[in-house]
């Protein structure tokens, strides 16, 4: 059982921490892309468990690794994220924004130190997105590696638009048709089906709404208990296992494509354009 209580056989060669140090030192030469799954421990309505974001991000990474085991390494997942806005729902664990960024950046910097050149942070929790953006940018500026981050749903926006029956946009945000379909497909027995209910009670707006696939033009995050009684924003009654299968297949296919592109992405050297010698501030060598 791994850190989120999921059973894996555990000896697969795509898990970073299954290696010994002596074995691992051969791997940077193979130009593997390191996948760091990041999630949250957070309420997901009365029908899904708190590990939803962790479980989905983890499943996406493992499925990708099964398809291209020699090209990636999956790191242990970071199970806590940024979500004070959910704290009124029992069980939610929130890590402060700067604490989260620092922790993630330290992990990626260690990976870069060992010689890995390509790191992908795979996120399962919407509110981590801007923080992981900063973390990934810091890794590029503070190491020699390339680091990128994304929430997995961003890879399948077109597919979700085609499949979804929820109101568009603003009808599919959290413990919704999308997340519930994926969970039904991946672990049906853990979904409390009798508890599934629709809850969309944000004030109607053209500019401010919540949607996992098509976010609003203006960003605002109010306390969730002020507009949701269930912790759901969306309509999970529309979720089906088949929709989940189609979404998951699409994510996995595109992850493979992304990993391969990222792995071979060309990169020129930095060039100093100053006429005079620079001063060496910001921890940069003059």
């Amino acid at each position, binding site marked *: *059982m*791994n*850190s*989120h*209580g999921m059973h894996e056989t*555990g*000896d697969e060669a795509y*898990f*970073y*921490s*299954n*290696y*010994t*140090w*002596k074995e*691992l*030192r051969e791997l940077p030469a193979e130009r593997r892309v390191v996948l760091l799954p990041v999630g949250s*421990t957070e*309420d*997901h*309505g*009365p*029908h*899904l*468990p*708190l*590990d939803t974001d*962790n479980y989905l991000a983890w499943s996406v990474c493992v499925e990708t690794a099964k398809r291209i085991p020699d090209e990636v390494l999956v*790191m*242990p*997942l*970071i*199970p*806590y994220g940024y979500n004070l806005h959910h*704290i009124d*729902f*029992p*069980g*939610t*664990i*929130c*890590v*402060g924004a*700067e*604490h*989260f960024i*620092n*922790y993630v950046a*330290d*992990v990626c*910097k*260690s*990976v870069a*130190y*060992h*010689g890995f050149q390509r790191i992908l942070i795979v996120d399962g929790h919407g509110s981590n997105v801007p923080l992981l953006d900063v973390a990934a940018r810091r890794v590029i500026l503070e190491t020699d590696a390339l680091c990128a981050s994304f929430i997995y749903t961003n890879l399948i926006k077109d597919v979700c638009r085609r499949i979804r029956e929820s109101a568009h946009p603003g009808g599919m945000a959290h413990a919704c048709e999308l997340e519930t379909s994926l969970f039904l497909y991946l672990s049906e027995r*853990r979904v*409390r089906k009798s*508890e599934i209910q629709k809850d969309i009670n944000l004030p109607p707006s053209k500019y401010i709404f919540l949607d996992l696939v098509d976010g609003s033009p203006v960003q605002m995050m109010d306390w969730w208990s002020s507009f949701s009684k269930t*912790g759901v924003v969306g309509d999970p009654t529309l979720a089906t296992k088949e929709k989940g299968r189609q979404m998951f297949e699409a994510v996995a296919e595109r992850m493979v494509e992304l990993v391969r592109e990222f792995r071979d992405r060309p990169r020129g050297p930095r060039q100093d354009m100053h006429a005079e010698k620079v001063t060496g501030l910001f921890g940069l060598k003059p």
Partner: protein
Amino acid sequence: MRARETYLYNRLTWPEMNDAIELEKVVILPTGSTEQHGRHLPLDVDLFLAESVCHELGRRAPDKVLVLPGIPYGLNMHHLDFPGTIHIQPEHFIDFCLDVTKSVAYHGFKRIALVNGHGSNQPLIDLIARRTVLETPSICCAFGYFAMGRDEYERLLESTVHAHADEMETSLYLHFAKERVRMDQAVSGDDRVGRYMSSDSTKVVRFNDFWGRWTRTGVHGDPTKASAEKGKRILEIILTHMLAWLEEYRVWPVEARQDQHRQPVQREVRW
């Protein structure tokens, strides 16, 4: 009731979490690391063993505990010369874990514990537990799972140094997941030892040197003496003590503080 039968924190939904809070479950946060453990053990030893021990405790007392997802990365720069080791700066580690324990306290769980699998996290989890006590209405304690029943299980061991990727850790790993141990690669290793200090802090003076300075294997102790059978017996000893600790902790009083000042204190002071 699902909250009574489930010992994994994040397998519950939020309405079920209300039941768990009512049951006054002890919430346990395992802390580990991703770190070299010699040529015979994988990098996940500290996380895997801390979580495995806590999950076994949960299986035996599901109505009394909730085990959180473990913290997978810890303080480790002294191991960085060994490929794969992940280092978190000490203040970042404290900030991150403290946010977790404070969130748990916020929800109304009165008793929280950090159960550690990585020696170098020890001073940090001590501080996290203390700060959780001082900054929330809950109580919080911390210990290394390996400290429970140590005198007893040490009698089962043939080697005398117990530090890292050693007879004890290797035996436990053999018990839990034999197929992942490269026993043919196991070798024993010592640190540099003086009269008062040693490079891995086994003497009276606290001192941790870069491991790349004094070992080529990353081992401190003698894993060649390890066996799955020893691991099973060590685990039983550890769990006997952890179950007894759990009973003690569950009823540990959380009393109102008593202010002994004659004049009113300055409540506006911000720490």
